[in-house]
């Protein structure tokens, strides 16, 4: 197990370095002179020069990159070029909000997708299967934020069951947080649930036809034992992969869902930073989310190794 972690880290670290390099290279793509923009319209030549020095833009980019990298290794992702806020600080405030939403959506996807997938596989080609497959097909095609909009219209505005806007932090009032997070979770998690159900159905049908399941049944094991202990552990493998890839997709989709439900996560920060061309913040967001995704993939690999000893 330790060797596996070590091997994965060996692959992961260069990948992370590559991403930071890519993200920093993007600053070279910025059209126009950033110093001129930041110094403002009426800035004198000296002011622009001063701004350039303050931002370190007078130095070659590889020096700036190494500086940034040294800072990032210590957890300092630089400061916003406009407001001079610490990017790490901003992310510390907002990332937990987005992560909480993403994780609850992931849990929702598993809680809905797994039973649906199993049921569809067991009732293959009957009406339960058709229904689940039909709903899943629509769920995958439907943008989550539109579902969110519809849920908002029906359950929050028409029926008044949930708050429309206003976010309560988890640390302040867990019950209110849960109440406010229900609709965003469903909106964000529905496409993921559909994908999980489809994958699990497929791999479950595959598994149920395999010899070891027949052997287990033949030697007199109870139906539920065969299903739970033998078939499900075997069929769960692709689902772990799906959940890991979904985590990355959900992080992206969360940015949009946050706008619908006015949740103060990284989404709003990202959009505003793009519009203001605050590149340091955008860089910080991309690097940190990459880190989250990489860690998720690592966890998925470990889960794989645990579920099927063959891959160890």
């Amino acid at each position, binding site marked *: 197990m330790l060797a596996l972690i070590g091997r994965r880290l060996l*692959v992961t670290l260069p*990948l992370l370095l*590559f*991403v930071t390099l890519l*993200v920093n290279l*993007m*600053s070279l*793509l*910025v*059209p126009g002179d950033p110093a001129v923009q930041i110094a403002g319209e009426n800035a004198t030549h000296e002011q622009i020069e001063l701004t350039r020095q303050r931002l370190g833009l007078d130095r070659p980019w590889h020096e700036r990159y190494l500086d940034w990298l040294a800072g990032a290794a210590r957890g300092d992702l630089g400061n916003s070029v406009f407001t001079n806020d610490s990017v790490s600080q901003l992310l510390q405030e907002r990332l937990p909000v987005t992560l909480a939403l993403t994780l609850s959506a992931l849990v929702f996807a598993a809680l809905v997708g797994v039973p649906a997938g199993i049921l569809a596989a067991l009732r293959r*080609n009957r009406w339960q299967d058709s229904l689940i*497959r039909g709903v899943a*097909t*629509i769920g*995958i*095609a*439907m*943008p989550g*934020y*539109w579902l969110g*909009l*519809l849920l*908002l*219209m029906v359950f929050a*505005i028409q029926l008044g069951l949930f708050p*429309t806007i206003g976010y309560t932090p988890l640390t302040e009032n867990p019950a209110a947080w849960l109440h406010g997070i229900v609709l965003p979770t469903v909106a964000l998690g529905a496409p993921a649930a559909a994908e999980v159900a*489809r994958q699990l*159905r*497929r791999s479950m*049908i*595959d598994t149920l036809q395999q010899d070891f399941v027949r052997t287990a049944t033949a030697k007199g094991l109870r139906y539920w034992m065969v299903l739970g202990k033998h078939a499900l552990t075997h069929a769960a493998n692709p689902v772990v992969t799906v959940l890991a890839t979904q985590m*990355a*997709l959900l*992080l*992206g*989709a969360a*940015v*949009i869902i946050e*706008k*619908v439900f006015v949740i103060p996560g990284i*989404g709003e920060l*990202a*959009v505003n*930073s*793009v*519009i203001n*061309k*605050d*590149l340091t913040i*955008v*860089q910080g*967001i*991309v690097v940190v*989310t*990459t880190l989250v*995704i*990489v860690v998720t*993939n690592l966890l998925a690999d470990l889960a794989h190794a645990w579920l099927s000893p063959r891959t160890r």
Partner: protein
Amino acid sequence: MMPVDTRKTDTSSAPETAVAHYRHRWRFLRRFLSHPGAVLGGAFLALVAVLAMFGPHLAPHDPLQNNLGQVLQPPSGDHWLGTDDLGRDLLSRLIVATRITVQAALISLAVGVGIGVPLGLAAAIMPPLLGGLLMRITDGIMAFPPILLAIGVLGALGPGLTQAMIAVGVVFVPRFARLTRASVQQVYHETYIEASRVIGTPLRRILRWHVLPNITGPLVVQIAVTCGFAMLAEAGLSFLGLGAQPPDASWGALLGRALPYVNTAWWLGIAPGLLITLTVLATNAVADGIGDSLGRGSRRQK
């Protein structure tokens, strides 16, 4: 790789014995037509294509004509889908937005295919070590959610639909590169290609006449699947206000504009979302249909 089917496949219409080789060319079409979902999806996509091409002529009102006396009107005989916050006719705006939406999807597809396929081809022919390295790099890009990478690129280039879709296209590059590499590697060491190489056929001609025909099938399926992704990504970015900039609008931008009015003008949020969903649904159905109708190797088994 032989995925077990996720849908009922009508194998009865395509029995292996009845497929005489002179009818080979029609086999694909016949199989495709036996999928009602795929045919329906294809018909819907044709409608979308018509809207994209002739949209401005079909719109009942001027999509940019403000009418401040008729702001946020519910659907009526004159305005079938109601009017928006500036009194503009929503139906006309939707119809005209089709072209921008389709264009956006095509841009990202062009970037994904245009870079991904040559890259995959190169990686397959290169020495394994170099090709493997190239694939490792694309793996890294593949880990990115399209929306986040697009936001990263837009951070440098500023908001705008073309930039956004190029960024989304970059995320698709690895998918096409991997697929191309895998398909090429499958055929590249077949005897007939080795033979062709031995007698001195130029590489370009081998690729054109022996390799490419073998990878078009999987490629077309992948393009159709990716098309749905591209539309969802475009809609998402425009929804955030980072894609199509006013007064231009795509379906996603119209949906984003409806957001502040969910309390007062719910109808603004229904039609654009429905249109996006139906189009993606149709694209996925067509992709499934094509995948099922292709040659024996890639057809899904019951």
